[in-house]
Structure formats: C-alpha cells, structure tokens
C-alpha cells in the first residue's frame, strides 16, 4: 500500500519535471482562449443548454437512431457494421483491408481507434498504417500514446519533435523550425495519402436521418483521407449519433470554442458518403473524370449520386457504451463531444498532462467515465484521485456534464472493490462511516474529518502538540499517507458553536432586518473559528439576528474521498438540522464555499429534489449575503475598514457558482481596491494536498498562484483549502475576506 503510494508519487514527480512544463503552457493558453471565445459569443450558455438537451434525447433514443442510421447509410450505398468490442471492430477493418488487397492505409486522428488499438491490429494484418494528423504522426513515430484528447503530442517540444524526425528520416538538411517540419510532414504524408488504398477517419457527429457525418479539423487531413482513397472507413462510437443535420447547430458553434478557443475550426466537413467527389488515381496520366458539378435539386432523394468507384463503411463501436447508457451515473459520459475543455481547465492536468491524468486512452476530467466504461475500473483507478472535485471543468464543458460527480461515483465504486485493509483497526474509533471495510486508510481518515476535528478540538491544545510530534507525523505518513511536510490544522478548544452559545445573539428580534443561520462547517467550527466570529459580527453590524446551531458537517469531506453513502448520511442530518430554521424564514449563510457547493449542487443527488431545492434556495455564501444586505440599504460604514489594497483568491467552487464578484464588490464598497487571481485552482483542494502521493503536485499547482501574489501585502481567500495553501506558500496567515470587513 505504501509502496503503491510511492510509485504513484514518483510517476507524478517524473511528469512534473518532464511533460508538465511542456504541456502546461499550451493547455493553459487554450483555456484562456476558451474564456475569450465564450465571451465573444453571445449564445454560449443557451447553445450549451441546447446541446445538452439534444445529447440527452439522442442517447435516450440510441437503439432507434442506430437502426435509422443503418437504413440511411445503406440507402446511400454504404455499409454499416456495429462492433460489439475492440476485437470485433478490428477484425472487421482488417478483413475489409484483406478483401481489398489493401497494402497501405492512411488515418485521420481518431480517439476511438486509439481506444481499439486499431493500428496494432492493422500492423499484425500486414497493412502499413500512417497517421496523417501531424500530432498523431509524431506520436506514431515515437511509439507513444496521446497525452491530450485534442492535441496528442502536446507533451513534446519542438526540439524533441525535430530530433525525432531527424533520427527517423535522416533528411539531408536537419529539420529545425516548425515551418520546416510541417512542410516535411506535409510532403511525406501527402505522398502516403496519394498512394493509400484505404482512408480511415473518425467522426465527430453522425446524423441518422441522412447518413451524414461531421469531421472537425484544422489541418485538412480528414478531408484528404476521406476523399482521396477510393475506400473510406469511418470508425466511431455509437454515442456520436444525432437525429439529423438540424441538430448540428449548437455543436458547430460550441466545439471549436470549447476545444481550442477558436471561433470555428478551419474545416468543418459534412460528408454524406459515399460522396459524388471524383476518385483520384495519382498513378494515372488520364484526366480526372468529372461529373456535373451543379446538379439541380431533383425529385429523387439524392442528387449527388455517389461516385461509382467509391466505397464507404461505417463502423459503429459499442465497446461498453451500451452498458454505460444503462448506468444512471455513467450515462452522462456519453454526452461528451471530446473537446478536451475539461483537461484544459484542470489545474492538475495543466501540471502533469494526460500521461498522468489519463488512462489507457482517454485523459482529463471526463476520462474517468470513459476509461471505467470502455477499459474497466483498473484503468480508471490509475488516475481517478487526480480529480480534486474543484468543479472548474463544469463550466468549461460545452454539454454541461457533471464531471466531478462521475469521478466521485467511480471513486466510490473503487472504494467498494478495495481489498480489506490490515490497518482498519487503527482508525476504527474515528470512522463511524457507512463505507465497506477495505477502504484506503487515508480516504477513511479524511472522509471522517468531522469526527477527527471534534476529537482534536475537545483535546486541544494537547492534540495539536501531539499531532505535530515527530513520531506521530511519521506514523501518519507511513500508515495513512499524510505528508509530514504539510502543516496540520490547528484545532481550537472553543468551537464556534460553543462561543456563540456563551455569547448569544446581539441583535434583538424586534430590531432585526433579517434572521440568519450561520452554518458552522467543520473547519469554521473547529479550526478557523475566527472567520466564523467575523461572519457573525459582520452580519450583526448589518442588523441581522444570527443563530449558530449545532449542525453536522456538509459531507464534502467524505464525498471527496468517494464515500457517497457517508456523504448522504451527512446531507440528511444537515437538512434535518436546518429545515426548521428555513421554515421560520431564516436565511442560511455559509462561510465555506465548498459547503455551499454541496448544498447547491451535490445535495441534488443526495436528498429528495424538494428538500435539496429548499435548502439551496435559502442558502447564501457569506459575502454574497453581505452584498445583498448592502444592496438593500445596509451601509458599508457599519462594517470595518479593510486594508487599502487586497489581493483576493476566490475558491474554485465559488467561482463555478459565480460568487467571486460579490466578494470583490463588498470589499470595494468598503473602500479597498481588489486584485483577483486568474489561476484555475490553488492546488490544495482539501485533503488532496495533505496526501503524500499528491503533495508535490499540489505545491506545483500552487506555485502559479503564489507567484501572482508574491508581492501583495494583504492576501485573502474564501476557501479553507485555499487559505491553507496560501499560508504554506506565502508564509503568514491568509484571512477569509469576511475577516477584512468585520467590525
């Protein structure tokens, strides 16, 4: 177990040193371009809703769509084959090549054929296969796997690619610049395309009603592979089918913006193969035989009669997708349009790339769903923990897939499949959870943080001294994987709830503008008690009568560890503890953004919809609430004066919930000038940064944020983990924003 952690840590360290520095800047830049492209495009959000609805309906209707597609393609003169699994698909393609006597085959980039390992099958069948997408060509020459769904060779530098090409091809003049290499590859691959017997492409979308398919590329190689050889084979997953070309609109608008930040890719092709386009025999000296280029619209179904020399095969790959469709939790994965936005927006992906944050084929946030579905849980297990649930990919996804939830579900299933652990007894008193025996000790420890905090607080300061003691840290590292380089939380003897019980509310009911429940999440209650006290004072200064009831923690901690049953148990208790307050017309004010994110997002999956909606509707983040009070006549003069200049890092989930503007507005209303960070994540994301396996990655991600704020005199943050990470990186205490405005 410990050796497994060490192996993973070593692998991550290796990638942090090698591929991360190459892939990171490229995906970050695509990520920034995505924000800009979305900003320029007014209908971004409505197109996402539309795309989501179309995919939901199409996956629901999939068996019918497959049959309609088969009829359409056959009517057009093509062939459809539905392959059950990789072996079945590969057998079909290799047999087809054998029937045609094909010696060489050219391919356009396709993740689905990567999933099948089609190239290996073709090689075994004696067919020479050439990847024509330049990134994929590089990967093929290097005998590596793609490190990104959209940019397979993003982990390689120009110099590395030049060395590779010079080694393999030994050109008279060594290749050096991107232009030289591109020109060389174009000429070399152009020749391969002209002489190839078969062209293989993927398909971004397939349309059942007409048998058409869409291909989105920048290079133009997909077009060449599809129309140059006489035989075109398109290999694609069954999930790519949409009812008709009418449904294409939102996807044309979204896919390139999400993928690369381009308004639209250079080539968006809509093919209805076999096409009318003339075949090109480059060995012939005869002029090309053209047909009528201006075929008028006619009475028949098809006026572009297919060129008689063309052959088209559509291979629809199931390979686990039908089971994913029947799985209520994994189904959403099938809505994925493979744009890679979840990779680009992911701070951990930016640091290690897809060879760390990926499985056998797919990489990035959505890869957990794909790998679990098509390659099985073992492949997903390799990288699943790299999703910290920060939720930045949720806004990035053009079809609004709840990617963190898929990761959590897979984590939960992995927990349940785990072998019983020898050390379970070590934490037996700390783990009153609903989870199976065998759950990894570190997960069990962090998942039961509330119990740990309660105990730590009751025995503070002794517990803090003890926890800091060398032998204890060594043991925690050895048995539970808690990295000894990370400062542990300092539990407070007096909890927020106890403090408030002793003090009582300071605004009388009759004088109160509103009544609010300050939700005491575990950190605010046991560790960062000062931010809770500050929140109480700020609310009271604006005439809010405050209550601080004894309520359980939100369940974020167990959820992060994939302990869904335990999280659900928390959710029921929290709802029960708050429901009467809501009935009494009180607002729920939350200090910790990740707790609010639980109420607003995950509780929708853990509680009955009515309860979840009721709690979500009543809940506000503390600075959002203060903003509302100021907007409704509250005076900032009642609050304290923040420092003149504040550097503020908003919590990742807080940004996904659009909370950042409220904090900025309140600080500004109180007279501060505010500078915000523009990194996706602080790198800590709760327990992640404590774990021995991920400590270095966490610090690597955090460095970008620390660099941005290195010279700032006052740095504030909203989330516990961000505060802890910034404390560690910058030294000194990083307050919550509410501590800056509390009187």
């Amino acid at each position, binding site marked *: 177990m410990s050796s497994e952690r060490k192996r993973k840590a070593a692998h991550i360290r290796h990638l942090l040193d090698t591929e991360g520095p190459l892939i990171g800047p490229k995906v970050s830049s695509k990520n920034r371009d995505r924000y800009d492209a979305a900003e320029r495009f007014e209908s971004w959000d409505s197109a996402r809703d539309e795309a989501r609805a179309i995919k939901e309906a199409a996956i629901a209707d999939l068996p019918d769509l497959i049959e309609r597609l088969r009829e359409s393609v056959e009517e057009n003169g093509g062939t459809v084959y539905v392959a059950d699994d990789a072996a079945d698909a590969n057998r079909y393609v290799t047999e087809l090549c054998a029937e045609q006597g094909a010696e060489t085959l050219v391919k356009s980039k396709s993740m689905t054929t990567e999933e099948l390992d089609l190239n290996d099958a073709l090689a075994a069948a004696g067919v020479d296969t050439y990847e024509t997408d330049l990134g994929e060509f590089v990967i093929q020459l290097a005998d590596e796997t793609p490190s990104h769904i959209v940019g397979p060779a993003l982990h390689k530098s120009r110099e590395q690619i030049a060395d590779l090409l010079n080694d393999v091809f030994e050109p008279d003049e060594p290749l050096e610049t991107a232009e030289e290499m591109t020109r060389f590859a174009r000429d070399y691959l*152009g020749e391969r395309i002209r002489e190839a017997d078969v062209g293989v492409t993927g398909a971004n979308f397939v349309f059942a009603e*007409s048998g058409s398919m869409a291909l989105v590329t920048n290079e133009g190689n997909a077009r060449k592979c599809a129309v140059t050889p006489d035989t075109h084979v398109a290999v694609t997953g069954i999930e790519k089918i949409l009812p008709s070309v009418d449904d294409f609109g939102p996807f*044309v608008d979204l896919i390139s913006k999400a993928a690369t930040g381009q308004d639209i890719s250079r080539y968006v*092709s809509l093919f209805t193969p076999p096409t*009318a386009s003339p075949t090109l025999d480059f060995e012939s000296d005869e002029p090309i035989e053209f047909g009528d280029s*201006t075929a008028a619209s006619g009475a028949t179904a098809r006026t572009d009669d297919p060129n008689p020399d063309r052959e088209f095969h559509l291979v629809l790959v199931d390979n686990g997708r039908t089971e994913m469709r029947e799985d209520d939790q994994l189904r959403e994965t099938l809505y994925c349009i493979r744009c890679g936005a979840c990779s680009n927006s992911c701070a951990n992906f930016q640091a290690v790339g897809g060879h760390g944050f990926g499985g056998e084929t797919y990489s990035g946030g959505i890869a957990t769903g794909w790998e679990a579905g098509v390659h099985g849980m073992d492949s997903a297990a390799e990288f699943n923990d790299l999703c910290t649930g920060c939720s930045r990919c949720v806004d990035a996804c053009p079809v609004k897939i709840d990617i963190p939830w898929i990761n959590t579900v897979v984590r939960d299933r992995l927990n349940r499949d785990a072998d019983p652990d020898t050390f379970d007894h070590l934490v037996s008193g700390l783990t009153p959870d609903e989870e199976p025996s065998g759950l990894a000790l570190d997960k069990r420890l962090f998942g039961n943080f509330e119990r740990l905090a309660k105990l730590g607080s009751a025995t503070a300061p002794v517990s803090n001294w003890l926890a800091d003691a060398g032998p204890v840290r060594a043991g925690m590292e050895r048995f539970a994987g808690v990295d000894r380089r990370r400062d542990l939380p300092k539990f407070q003897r007096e909890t927020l709830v106890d403090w408030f019980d002793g003090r009582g509310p300071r605004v009388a009911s009759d004088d109160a503008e509103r009544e609010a429940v300050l939700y005491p999440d575990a950190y605010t209650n046991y560790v960062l008690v000062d931010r809770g006290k500050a929140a109480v004072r700020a609310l009271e200064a604006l005439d809010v009568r405050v209550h601080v009831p004894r309520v359980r923690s939100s369940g974020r901690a167990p959820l992060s560890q994939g302990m869904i049953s335990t999280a659900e148990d928390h959710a029921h208790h929290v709802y029960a503890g708050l429901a009467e307050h809501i009935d009494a017309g009180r607002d729920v004010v939350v200090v910790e953004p990740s707790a609010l994110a639980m109420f607003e997002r995950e509780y929708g999956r853990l509680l009955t919809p009515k309860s979840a909606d009721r709690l979500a509707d009543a809940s506000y983040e503390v600075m959002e609430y203060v903003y509302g009070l100021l907007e409704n006549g509250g005076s900032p003069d009642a609050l304290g004066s923040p420092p003149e200049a504040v550097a503020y890092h908003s919590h990742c989930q807080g940004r996904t919930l659009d909370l950042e503007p409220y904090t900025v507005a309140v600080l500004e209303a109180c007279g501060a000038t505010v500078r915000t960070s523009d990194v996706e994540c602080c790198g800590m994301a709760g327990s992640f940064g404590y774990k021995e396996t991920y400590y270095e990655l966490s610090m690597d991600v955090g460095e970008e944020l620390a660099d941005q704020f290195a010279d700032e005199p006052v740095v504030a943050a909203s989330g516990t983990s961000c505060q802890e990470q910034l404390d560690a990186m910058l030294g000194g205490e990083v307050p919550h924003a509410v501590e800056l405005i509390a009187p």
Partner: protein
Amino acid sequence: MTVTDDFLDALADLGVSHDQTTLDDLPATLADAVDDPAVGVPLHVDAALPESVATTFTPSELQDAATGVTPARLGIAEYGSVLIRSSAGGDEPVSLYPERHVAVLAAEDVVATGRDAVDWLADEVAAGRGSHVLATGASATADMGGLVEGVHGPNEVHVVLVEEVSDE
C-alpha cells in the same frame, strides 16, 4: 454594418484576402487572382473561368497546381467561412490540394451566423446534396511547436465576392 461588411472583417481577421467585383468583371478579376498553373471547377454563377484556369487536368496536374478555383455556395459573416460543396465536379479536391484556394462567392449568399448556415445545410442535405465543407481561412497546425499555415490544405485563401448576381 451590413452582413457583407461583417464577412469582410472576419476575412481580414483570418488573413484571407478578397476582391469585390461584378459578374462582367469576374473573369478578369479571377485572371489576376490566380497564380499559374491554376485548375478550377466551372462556376455556379453566370460567368466563365479565365483561360488560364484549366478545367480538365490529371491528378498530378491537380497536385502541382498553384491555385484551385471553386465556387463557394455560402459565406458566413460571423466566422469568415466559405462553404464548398463536395460535388462530382471536383470542388472538394480543387479547394484542398493546391496551395492557393480562390473561392467565388455571390455577395447575396453571405449569411450572418453559423446557425443560418446549418439551416441552409439541412435543406441541402434534404434535397440530396449532402457533402460540404465549411472552410475558414487556411489549413493550419500547431502540432510542430508553432502555428504554421498550409498543412494538408491550402496555405492561402482568397475570396472573390461577386455583387448583383441575380436580377431579383
């Protein structure tokens, strides 16, 4: 701003050059716009290709041509895209193989948005004309460590916008 202005702005952003001309002047404009040797597909508007543009050629002549001239059936103002139909006449390879692609587009065929183009495409597909490409600027790649134009497709695109094609 008219739709045409938006379209021309989008072309400029993409680095795509253009001419604006009339049906009568089209052959002369095209003669100036092509680099030799040039190949082409007969136009969809009522004008002939200049003599310098071959409409009968072998595959290797296609491969060696400096310019390919094709009709463009639609333009999208929002993106600066031209829509090329993949027909029996060879629009697809002629727009793809030569280094310079000259697209002839009637000004009245410029639509505002990608959505308009998809609506138009859906009608075409329903009418049996099912293969098209929305081409936006030159072919490009960043896979070799820097943005390079002209990969498998053309590295130069030039749009000839023809005014007042129909009398309607």
